[in-house]
């Protein structure tokens, strides 16, 4: 009986199968080779003198000086710009002081640094810094002891840079094995994080026709797993470089020939697709992390003079963008449909309402914290409603801020550190201390191992910001 039925059902089922196969034939894609087809644009040969050549040049011209510093036996990491989670929030375990005495938090060490705004990265008891040595006319990648600020090693290579509001202004990115820095003239150097030994280098200008931004590069290298993400602009909007080798893994197209900005690309996950959000000179784009494909772009957000703050990934496909030069702020929403992405504007904010000129706002507990054009600290919700401001009596200029354990550390132009309770529904200052009395203390902060590293134009300071009990338990200054 069954076999009879099978025989009877055979024609119909074969017909269905055939229809499916014919559909597959007619509608099927481009086959295996489609993957190796890419738009043929200029510069894919990395012509005009590239990686290898620059690597050779930098390596040849470089000097590695081993100094007497010793890494601190301190846990805690701030491995790159905006910290481990790229959110500007420290992951401190030891309780932090909620108030300081009049003497302020203990200053562990102070060192002189070249003019600029380059912030520190911290890992394994080491502090990494890209500095500029004006006398030697050289970029200097410095590895300092977190304990006392003494150099462990210095790697320098000559780059002539003229004074223009300082020189170095980027934060290194570091893994246990490698440290990657981006110099003021867009030289990307990868060194052994422990020894400072040269690994590879890329001159973004020569290799990718990047244009050095006004006031030199402010973009910080982004290490995403095993690769370094850089946004050279020019021949490629973004490139992914294998961290260990310097091999270019992919490059994304740059149809609009956008140029490099001071912003750093920020990773975002959306519907299972990992992408990098980068505001270039001509708009904002989302680049697939896998292959560098341009997933979406919009010219709704562009700042003609300089884009400095990096995008804030606000969850749910939202990207918060802000900037100076009368740009204000904007919330983008990235919609994903059938694997295609598109950006739309959720809202824009007047610069007077809520914006940041230079520092990237911090998103904490669905609240955005930023210092506005008038120097007031402001807190807004994700719909762009300002919840509170610090008032005209409490201004911070263009200084940086970072967050840890609900405490917002805000620095003003001159180097005064203010501790603000981020969890309160209003501006509540917990403590304040004049750490430095310099100017242009705009370098991003780093908070790691109970320490806060901040700088002004020429000095870098490491503070112990743990509370007394923790300090006692874990040991004081070594």
């Amino acid at each position: 009986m069954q076999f009879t039925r099978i025989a009877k059902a055979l024609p119909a089922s074969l017909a269905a199968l055939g229809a499916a196969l014919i559909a597959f034939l007619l509608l099927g894609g481009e086959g295996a080779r489609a993957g190796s087809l890419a738009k043929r644009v200029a510069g894919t040969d990395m012509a005009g003198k590239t990686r290898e050549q620059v690597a050779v040049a930098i390596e040849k011209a470089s000097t590695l000086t081993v100094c007497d510093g010793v890494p601190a036996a301190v846990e805690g990491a701030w491995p790159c710009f905006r910290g481990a989670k790229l959110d500007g929030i420290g992951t401190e375990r030891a309780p932090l002081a909620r108030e300081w005495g009049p003497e302020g938090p203990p200053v562990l060490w102070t060192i002189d640094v070249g003019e600029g705004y380059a912030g520190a990265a911290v890992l394994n008891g080491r502090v990494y810094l890209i500095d500029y040595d004006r006398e030697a006319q050289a970029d200097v990648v410095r590895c300092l002891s977190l304990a006392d600020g003494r150099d462990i090693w210095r790697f320098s290579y000559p780059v002539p840079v003229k004074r223009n509001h300082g020189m170095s202004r980027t934060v290194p990115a570091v893994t246990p094995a490698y440290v990657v820095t981006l110099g003021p003239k867009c030289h990307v150097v990868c060194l052994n994080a422990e020894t400072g030994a040269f690994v590879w280098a890329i001159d973004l200008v020569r290799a990718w026709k990047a244009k050095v931004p006004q006031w030199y590069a402010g973009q910080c290298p982004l290490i995403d797993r095993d690769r370094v993400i850089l946004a050279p602009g020019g021949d490629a909007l973004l490139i992914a470089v294998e961290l260990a080798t310097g091999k270019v893994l992919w490059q994304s197209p740059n149809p609009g020939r956008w140029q490099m900005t001071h912003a750093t690309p920020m990773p975002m996950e959306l519907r299972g697709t990992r992408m990098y959000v980068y505001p270039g000179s001509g708009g904002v784009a989302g680049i697939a992390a896998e292959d560098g494909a341009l997933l979406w772009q919009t010219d709704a957000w562009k700042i003609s003079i300089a884009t400095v703050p990096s995008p804030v990934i606000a969850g749910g496909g939202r990207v918060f963008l802000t900037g100076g030069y009368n740009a204000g702020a904007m919330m983008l929403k990235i919609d994903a449909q059938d694997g295609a992405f598109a950006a739309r504007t959720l809202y824009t904010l007047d610069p007077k309402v809520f914006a940041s000129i230079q520092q990237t706002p911090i998103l904490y507990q669905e609240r955005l914290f930023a210092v506005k054009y008038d120097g007031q600290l402001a807190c807004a919700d994700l719909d762009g409603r300002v919840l509170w401001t610090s008032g005209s009596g409490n201004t911070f200029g263009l200084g940086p801020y970072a967050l840890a354990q609900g405490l917002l550390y805000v620095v003003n132009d001159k180097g005064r550190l203010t501790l603000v309770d981020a969890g309160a529904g209003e501006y509540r200052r917990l403590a304040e201390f004049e750490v430095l009395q310099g100017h242009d203390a705009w370098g991003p902060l780093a908070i790691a191992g109970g320490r806060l590293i901040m700088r002004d134009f020429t000095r870098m300071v490491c503070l112990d910001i743990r509370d007394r009990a923790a300090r006692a338990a874990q040991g004081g200054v070594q």
Partner: protein
Amino acid sequence: MSDHETTPIPRRGFMRAAARAACALGIGGGAAYLVAPRTPGERVWQIDPEKCIACGNCATYCVLRESAVKCVHSFAMCGYCELCTGFFNPSPNDLTTAAENVLCPTGAIVRRFVEDPYFEYTIDQNLCIGCGKCVKGCKMFGNGSLYLQVIHDRCLNCNQCSIAAACPSEAWVRVPAARPHLWKKVT
């Protein structure tokens, strides 16, 4: 069998057997004679790069839909030039890798900067269709380091190669399987 039983004529059977033996001897011996003195023979098809005029027949006459012939590059002969006429149009707009400047119809030649003034050119065999355009360009202005070869893991090694039959310059030859390529190289 039935013959033997139904027509029992021994003489006829004997003659058939003799003829059969002669025939077997002829076939076997003849084949052996033809094979014996000439081994090891020339077994596989290859293109003599010195004779090849890169006409493009290789790309179309192969019995395979995608030809077994592809371009290869003898790096040791290459000038590593910036202005590579195997890579660029005869009159490129600019010496960049953009589509408007480059020659290869499928984008199979990959150019990579090595150091001033050298560029390295490699063939993505996945994309190469063996049209020979770059071969012509390289031969005309360059060292002739790009040239067409039969890729043996594609070639079916037909008795009569359709491309060989269509080759205008008698560049198709049989070569020993042990040395299946006619490489252009520095010795």
